[in-house]
């Protein structure tokens, strides 16, 4: 949003530098590595979903706070769609955008309270760059954010276990839909394009959100696959009389179904050889003879979340 704001050189250069420093993927990984889940008794998944919603509301809230501070009625009336509207629409740009800001701010504070009430830790806001250079840009980015927000809520509501929280999420979802309807309208789009809104997966939504995130505080930012991938085929201890041990981790999986990658390496013990250490089926040759060998497996999912496990091979 501030990237090209005149008279704010230090900020501008910061964003330019950030853009150069972090490719989208690197940035996404950086955010996604920040784990924030704080499990409470029986509610860990609700806390996790609420923190996902909170991460999106932080983003929306920051977007509108910046936009309300930056654009005046005159800016909106110079936006590309303004000429087709009459006074009832044009005179309400500022009040309606301001109302949307107030809603997003209210969603943030409500979600924070609910998460704390459940014994969780609310995720913190990040620093954002929305790449907005005009009131027209602002209105079109707002439209995108609100429509994705609807898809995110519609996709997540059924995963909430607590009935009251499910209801509260529905009352936010329909408000995001009202925002989306208005923003579609002022961008020359159909307010309600289809009989059913579509849903969007958490991984997709967070990948889209990451494009707007410059940096997040430690422990901040949205997470996905919060539990990380699961590891399959790794026993804590393997007793063997054979010189070779074959592993099969092919059953390891990510909660979002994304592909997982493997890294298997020796931690301690006599010398050994590893074949296929970056595959799901590595083989160990215990060249150092009888003894105790320790290996570590790291499984990484498509979002960069990791799960680590160890195995001890006792060769006798």
């Amino acid at each position, binding site marked *: 949003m501030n990237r090209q704001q005149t008279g704010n050189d230090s900020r501008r250069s910061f964003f330019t530098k950030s853009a150069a420093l972090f490719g989208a993927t690197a940035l996404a990984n950086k955010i996604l590595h920040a784990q924030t889940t704080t499990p409470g008794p029986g509610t860990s998944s609700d806390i996790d979903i609420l923190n996902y919603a909170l991460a999106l509301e932080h983003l929306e809230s920051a977007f509108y706070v910046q936009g309300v501070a930056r654009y005046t009625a005159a800016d909106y009336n110079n936006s590309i*769609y303004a*000429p*087709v*509207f*009459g*006074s*009832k*629409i044009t005179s309400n740009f500022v*009040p*309606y955008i301001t*109302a*949307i800001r*107030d*809603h997003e701010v*209210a*969603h943030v504070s*409500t979600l924070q309270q609910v998460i704390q009430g459940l014994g969780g830790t609310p995720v913190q806001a990040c620093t954002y760059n929305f790449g907005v250079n005009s009131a027209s840009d602002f209105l079109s980015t707002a439209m995108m954010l609100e429509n994705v927000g*609807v898809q995110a*809520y*519609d*996709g997540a*509501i*059924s*995963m909430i276990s607590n*009935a*009251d929280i*499910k*209801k*509260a999420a*529905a*009352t*936010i*979802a*329909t*408000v*995001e*839909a*009202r*925002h*989306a*309807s*208005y923003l*579609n*309208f002022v961008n*020359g789009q*159909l*307010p*309600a394009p*289809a*009989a*059913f*809104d*579509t*849903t969007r997966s958490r991984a997709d939504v967070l990948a889209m959100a990451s494009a707007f995130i410059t940096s997040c505080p430690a422990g901040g930012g949205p997470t996905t696959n919060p539990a990380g991938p699961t590891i399959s085929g790794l026993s804590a201890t393997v007793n063997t009389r054979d010189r070779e041990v074959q592993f099969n981790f092919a059953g390891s999986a990510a909660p979002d179904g994304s592909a997982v990658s493997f890294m298997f390496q020796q931690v301690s013990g006599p010398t050994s050889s590893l074949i296929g250490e970056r595959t799901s089926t590595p083989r160990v040759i215990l060249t150092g003879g009888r003894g105790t060998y320790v290996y570590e497996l790291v499984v990484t999912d498509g979002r960069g979340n990791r799960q680590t496990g160890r195995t001890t091979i006792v060769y006798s």
Partner: protein
Amino acid sequence: MMQQQQAEAPLPNKTDASSSLATSAVVAAGAAMLASSLQAQTTTVTDVTLLNYALLLEQLEANFYTQGLRRFSSSDFNNGSFSQNLGNTSDFYGDSITGDVYGNLLLIRNHEQTHVRTLERTIRSLGGTPRTNCNGFSFTYNTVDEFLAVGKLLEDTGVSAYAGALNMLRDPQLVTTAATIATVEGRHAAYLRLITGDSPFPAAFDPTKTMQEILSAAAPFLGSCTV
């Protein structure tokens, strides 16, 4: 449960004048019955009951738009007093904004009809019986402005109904379907509010309403149809 009520209050002779008194009695009884059964056995309200409740509201909405768009033409909407606020006659994207109103209302009508058909199909797929469709709902308006005012009320009420009932559905897939309908009702409500000069989004959280509240609110529109 819906079927139960229909069985107890057989009505298919929806013709004579006494039906309006009869229906309000049926509504009151129906609302009380639904409400008491909800309180008594919140955990046993079936998904089919809830979907038939949603179906009633969708039938009402679909019937509302079908009647109104048959009665009023596109030019009636262009002459409505609300349209004076909406914009000039430039053809920026196809039609002028005011010309778009009729098209958007046709779309909204189509959405409600799609909701009806989807709910009917879903109820059947769950082994239930969808409530009988009824075209005899009754709405009072004389002008397009009055028509839009009723539409606004119906859509806002629809949002509150879905937001209030969605969490009682047991099947997570049905929860998702209900959510994707609820947000579309929210879009309709916002649009109708916007073009009639109200804030499209009056609060940070939409209010929710119970089945009993919704059925009472729907009572004046039931005409020759029943709960």
